[in-house]
C-alpha cells in the first residue's frame, strides 16, 4: 500500500507498524522522531501503531542550524 513519508510516496507492506516502516527504511528508531498524520508517536509506541493507506508520516532529526 501507498503512504507518504517526508513528502514522498512510498510502498509499505500492508499491516506494517511504524516500527516496521523505520526498519524497511533502515532507520534507527532512536535517531528519529516520528509524526504520524500530524500526531507525534513516542518511541515505545512505534510498534503498536499500524500504518494505513494514504497516511502521512514525517521522520525528522537534528541537523546543523543556528
Amino acid at each position, binding site marked *: 500500500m501507498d503512504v507518504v*513519508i*517526508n*513528502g*514522498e510516496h*512510498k510502498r509499505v507492506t500492508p499491516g506494517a507498524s511504524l516500527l516496521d516502516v523505520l526498519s524497511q*527504511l*533502515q*532507520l534507527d528508531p532512536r*535517531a*528519529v*522522531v516520528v*509524526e504520524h498524520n500530524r500526531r*507525534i508517536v*513516542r518511541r515505545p509506541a512505534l510498534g503498536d501503531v499500524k500504518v494505513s493507506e494514504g497516511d502521512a508520516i*514525517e*521522520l*525528522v*532529526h*537534528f*541537523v*546543523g*542550524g*543556528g
Partner: protein
Amino acid sequence: MTTAVETVRDEPLTIGGRTFPSRLMVGTGKYPDMDTMVRAIEASGAEVVTVAVRRVNLDRSKESSVLHFLDPKKIFLLANTAGCYTAADAIRYARLAREAGFNDFVKLEVIGDEETLLPDVAGLLEATKVLVQEGFKVLAYTNEDLVTALRLEDAGCAAVMPLASPIGSGLGLLNPFSVRTIKRRLHVPVIVDAGVGTASDACVTMEQGVDGILMNTAIAAAQDPVAMAQAMRLATIAGRAAFLAGRMPRREVAMPSSPTRGMLD
C-alpha cells in the same frame, strides 16, 4: 565564578533553572565540514549548541544527523524552530524537537519576512504562550523592541533573545541603546542572538551588560572557523569583564593623562 580575567567576579549564567559555564552559545549550521564544526565548538568553549529540526533524507540517512558528531553528554542541545513562518509551525517543530528526548528548552523563532528574516512578533508571542503552557523553557528570538521583550517575559519566556542585526548579516550590534534598555528592564536573561560578525562585535555586545550571546555564521563562515571561535570566546569574556569593571565616562574634550605641572621652562 571567575572569568579568565581573574580579578573579575561574576555570577554564572542561569536560564530556566539550569546553569551554564559559558556566556557564549554557538550554532552548528553552514560549516565547511563536520570536523571543522566539532573543533570550532570546542574552541568556542560554548556548552549550549543550537540545532535545527529537519526531515531525514531517506536516500542518505546514514550521514546526515548532526548528532553523529556531537556528544549530548558534553554539550547542551538547544533546538531551534528556524524556518518557521507561523506560530503553528513553530509549535509543531518545538514538540518534535522535545520528543528527541534531550531537554525541554527551545530557541523559538517565528520568522515574518523572507528577505530580512526579522521575527513575526505576534506569532512569536502566540507560540510562546502555548509552549510555556506545555512546559517548554522558551528562549525567544525577537527584534530589539522593548515592548515586545516585556510581553515575551510576561508570557513566561525563560530568556529573551533580541537580535544584534539580521540573521547571517554580520553587521554587528546596530542598536546598543535598545539592547541595553531591554537588559535594564527585563528580569529574565537577555541573550543577544544573530548579527555578530567578528570578535569586536561580540565584545561590544557583551559590554552592554547582556547575559550572553549566540552566534553561528560569524564563526562558521570565517576563513578559519576554529581560530574565529577562539577569538569569540575571548571577546565574550573580555566584553563581560569590561561591563563588570564599569567603563570610564565619555568626554567630548581631552584630558591629559600626564601631570601638567613640573614642565620645563
